[in-house]
C-alpha cells in the first residue's frame, strides 16, 4: 500500500515541478523544429524528382536523427528529474517524516522508482510518438520494428534511472549526477570506439568498446534499439550513432537487464542499511 502511495506522490510531484514541463517544452520545441526541417526536405524531394527508394531511405535516415535527439533528451531528463529523489530528500531531512511512517524502506524506494518509470515511459512514448507521427504525416514513412525498438529505449532510460537511484542511496545529489552522466558518457564513447573498431577491423578497439558497454550498458541498448528500427539499407552504413555495423547482440540486452536488476537490488540493500 505504501508503495503505491509513494508512486502517486512521485507522479504528483513531477507534475507540479517545473523541470518536467521544461522537458516537455524542450521536446515540443524540438518536434516543431524537426517537423519544419522535414517539411522543407520533402519539398526539395518533389522539386528534384528523386526516386521513391532514395526518398524512403533519406526520410528513414532523418527519422533516425529524430530518434537519436529524443533519446538524448529522454536520458538527460531522466537523470535531471530523478537525481535528487533520494539523496536530496536525505540531505534536506524531508525523508525523516516519511521513513518514520509504517512503510518499509524498500517500499519507499520502489514506490518512487515506479513513479519515475511511469513518467519516463510517458515522456519517451510522447517524444518517439511525435517523431513517428511527423515522419508519417510529412514524409509518408513509418519506421520498421517500432515495437521492438522503443521498449529497448524504455529499458535504457529505466537503467539510467536505476543507476541514478543507486548513486542517490550513497552519494550526494551533485556526485550522483556526475557519476551517472559520466558513466553514460563512457558508454557513449565506448559505443563509437566499438563501431570504429568494427569498421577498421581492429579487435582491440572493439574489445575496449565492449568493456565500456559492460561497465555501463545504456548506450548498447540505444544502439540495439536504433538497429531494430532501421531500414536494411541504413543498417549497411559503416558506422555512426545510427549505424549498425556492430549492433550489440541479444546477449548484451540480457546482460543490461541483469545489470538493472542487480543495481536495483544493491540500491534497496544500501537504502535499507543506511542511517537517515
Amino acid at each position, binding site marked *: 500500500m505504501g508503495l503505491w502511495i509513494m508512486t502517486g506522490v512521485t507522479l504528483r510531484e513531477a507534475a507540479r515541478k517545473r523541470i518536467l514541463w521544461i522537458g516537455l517544452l524542450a521536446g515540443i520545441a524540438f518536434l516543431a523544429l524537426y517537423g519544419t526541417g522535414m517539411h522543407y526536405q520533402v519539398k526539395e524531394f518533389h522539386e528534384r524528382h528523386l526516386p521513391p527508394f532514395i526518398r524512403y531511405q533519406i526520410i528513414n535516415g532523418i527519422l533516425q536523427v529524430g530518434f537519436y535527439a529524443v533519446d538524448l533528451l529522454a536520458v538527460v531528463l531522466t537523470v535531471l528529474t530523478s537525481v535528487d529523489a533520494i539523496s536530496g530528500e536525505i540531505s534536506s531531512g524531508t525523508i525523516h517524516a516519511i*521513513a518514520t511512517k509504517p512503510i518499509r524502506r524498500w517500499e519507499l524506494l520502489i514506490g518512487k522508482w515506479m513513479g519515475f518509470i511511469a513518467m519516463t515511459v510517458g515522456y519517451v512514448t510522447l517524444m518517439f510518438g511525435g517523431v513517428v507521427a511527423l515522419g508519417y504525416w510529412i514524409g509518408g514513412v513509418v519506421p520498421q520494428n517500432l515495437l521492438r525498438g522503443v521498449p529497448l529505449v524504455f529499458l535504457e532510460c529505466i537503467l539510467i534511472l536505476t543507476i541514478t537511484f543507486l548513486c542517490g542511496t550513497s552519494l550526494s545529489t551533485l556526485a550522483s549526477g556526475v557519476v551517472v552522466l559520466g558513466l553514460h558518457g563512457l558508454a557513449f564513447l565506448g559505443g563509437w570506439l566499438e563501431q570504429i573498431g568494427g569498421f577498421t577491423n581492429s579487435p582491440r578497439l572493439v574489445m575496449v568498446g565492449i568493456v565500456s558497454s559492460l561497465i555501463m550498458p545504456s548506450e548498447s541498448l540505444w544502439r540495439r534499439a536504433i538497429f531494430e528500427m532501421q531500414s536494411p539499407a541504413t543498417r549497411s552504413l559503416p558506422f555512426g550513432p545510427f549505424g549498425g555495423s556492430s549492433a550489440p547482440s541479444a546477449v548484451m540486452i540480457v546482460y543490461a537487464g541483469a545489470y538493472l536488476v542487480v543495481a536495483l537490488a544493491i540500491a534497496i540493500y544500501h537504502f535499507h542499511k543506511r542511517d537517515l
Partner: protein
Amino acid sequence: MDQSDGFAIQTENLRKVYESKIAVRNLSLTVRRGEIFGFLGPNGAGKSTSVKMLLGLVKPTSGRADVLGLPCSDVGVRRKIGFLPEDFRFYDWLTAAELLDLHGRLCGMDRAKLRERVPTLLEMVGLAPHRAKRLREFSKGMLQRIGLAQALIHEPELIFLDEPTSGLDPMGRRLVRDVIRAQRERGATVFLNSHLLSEVEITCDQVAFIKDGEVVASRDLRAQPDGDLRLFVRATKLSPQAVAGLAKWCTASQQDGERLSLSPRSTADFPEILRHLVSAGADIYEFAPERLSLESLFVKIMGEDRGL
C-alpha cells in the same frame, strides 16, 4: 500483564558509533506509558541520534530498544507512533490539507476517516484558513504547526516532538503546550526533546539529562526530590545562635539581613525548622519551600561551561 506493557520506551545499553565518534555511549532509559517525558542535554550530547534510533531511522551499533513493547526496528509499531522532526521539512509543493491526507494514508487511514480528521486537525493547529495554501508559502511557525498536525493525524500512542516550539511565537508555544496536555489526557505518551527548559518544566512529568551519550540523571518533576530542596525564610530577630542551630536539619544556610536561604535535607524536617526558629525568638513573615529550577538543575548536572 507483561512488564513491558507499562513502558512506552525501554532501552538497554543502546550504543551508536560512527566512524570516529561515539554518538550514543550507553543509553538506558525507561519512559512509562502516559507520561510526558523531557529529554535534555547540551548540543552534541546524542539526543537526536537517540531519538532517530528509537524511530528506526538510525541503526544502533549495539544494545536494545523497545518501543510500545516491540523492537524499534519493527515497521508495524510505527502505526502507533507520531514524529515531529526538528526543522520540519516536507514536500513544499503540497497544500496543508494534502500533506495531512498523505501522512494519514501512509499511516493506513482510509479516505472517509481522513475527510473528517484533516479539517479537525487544521482547526486545532490554527491553520484552517490556510488549508489550500502550498507549504512553500508557509512561514517557519506555520510549518511547525502543520508538522505537529501530521504527527498527530493517526492519534498515535507515542509522540516524539523534537524541538516543537523552536520556530513559534508565544501563541504558538501555548498551542503546543495545550496540544501536549490534550495528548496526556487521552492517555498518549509524549517524548519531548527541547532546549527550552522553562517549557519542559511546565509540561513534563519526568526528565532525563543526557551528557556524552549517556543518561547522567533523571528527575520526577511531579515529586519534590529532597536533594534539590531550598527553603526561603524571611524573619526578624534572627540570632546567630538560631541560624547556627539550623545545621541540624540543613546542609547549608545563607543569611542576608531578614532573608534566610536554607538547603534542608528533607521536607519532613520543615516543621522542626519552623519550631526551632520560633522558639529561638524569631518573628517569621515568610516560610516558603522552593524547588531548584530546571535550569539551575541542568547547569548543576552538566557543569557551568557547557552551553545549550
